[in-house]
């Protein structure tokens, strides 16, 4: 249906949006379930983790500093300047499944997905930030918590 979908005559918009939110929450829950079982520092998310991490450090040298990854600022990420940098970054990985899907992202690596501490990003941003957090060992606390 996707290729034939006629946006002008689309019905049930609200339902579709709900479906999408369900998927985003599912994704967040699944990811969190993994972090509680497996230390983030040993977790692999995709086949391209190395590439994503390398590109992140190249395009956003500030993320070489673990503290910058631990707490990200939505205002910086979504400023006109930030948006442009991220857009260029995202397009490098447009081969990855769901790369531009809306995805929930925690602003602080030391918190669970909370109402205030969760922002909206695209999947590849989620990967980039979470891979960096995992590599810096910033998510390992989730396993110990249990």
């Amino acid at each position, binding site marked *: *249906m996707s290729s034939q979908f006629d946006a002008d005559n689309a*019905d049930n918009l609200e339902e579709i949006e709900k479906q999408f939110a369900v998927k985003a929450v599912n994704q967040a829950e699944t*990811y969190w379930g*993994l972090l509680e*079982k497996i230390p983030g520092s040993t977790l692999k998310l*995709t086949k391209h983790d190395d590439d994503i991490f390398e590109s992140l450090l190249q395009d956003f040298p500030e993320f070489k500093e673990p503290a910058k990854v631990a707490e990200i600022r939505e205002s910086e990420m979504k400023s006109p300047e930030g948006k442009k940098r991220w857009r260029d970054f995202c397009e490098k990985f447009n081969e990855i499944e*769901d790369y531009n899907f809306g995805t929930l992202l925690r602003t602080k690596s030391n918190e669970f997905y909370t109402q205030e501490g969760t922002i909206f990003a695209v999947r590849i941003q989620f990967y980039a930030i979470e891979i960096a957090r995992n590599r810096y060992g910033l998510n390992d606390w989730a396993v110990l918590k249990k």
Partner: protein
Amino acid sequence: MSIEEIPQGADVNVIPKNEKKARELIKKLNLKQIKGITRVTFKQRGNLIYAIDAPDVYRSAAGTYVVFGEAKVDDMNQRIADAQAAQAAETDAHAGHTHSHGEEDKSPEAITADLEKASLTEKIEEEEEEGEVDESGLDAKDIDIIVEQTQVSRAKAVKALRKHDGDMVNAIMELS
């Protein structure tokens, strides 16, 4: 659902008697026809897809849909083969129409054949799952994690992981 056979590209629209009746009844149910829908698909386990091209779609106030049209099995794995076969079948059916009117009976048979073919394909896939699992190119540790998280067979974990190109979260989401 009633089945109607419209060979692609045919300009004559033959509606069987039963379907005509069904359509009239359904119109009495106060359904609204939705125009502009070019394809309806049903997805079944095993990546089998039943597709109805150029369907007539009606919608009730409660959000129930009634779809008229010719269902075709659209197996992703054999898409090309099917497309060729369907084209040949359509040519035959089309030729048949010009000769006699009794040819409409052919559509249920064609559907049955499609369904049989579909169930056969599914069996083959299941057998493959039980056989030796090819894990090449995948990280054994990733497969372990998925098996542990979702309690599925190793073969299923491998399949999901391959489908999502090594994406852990997506693979687990599909299985749970």
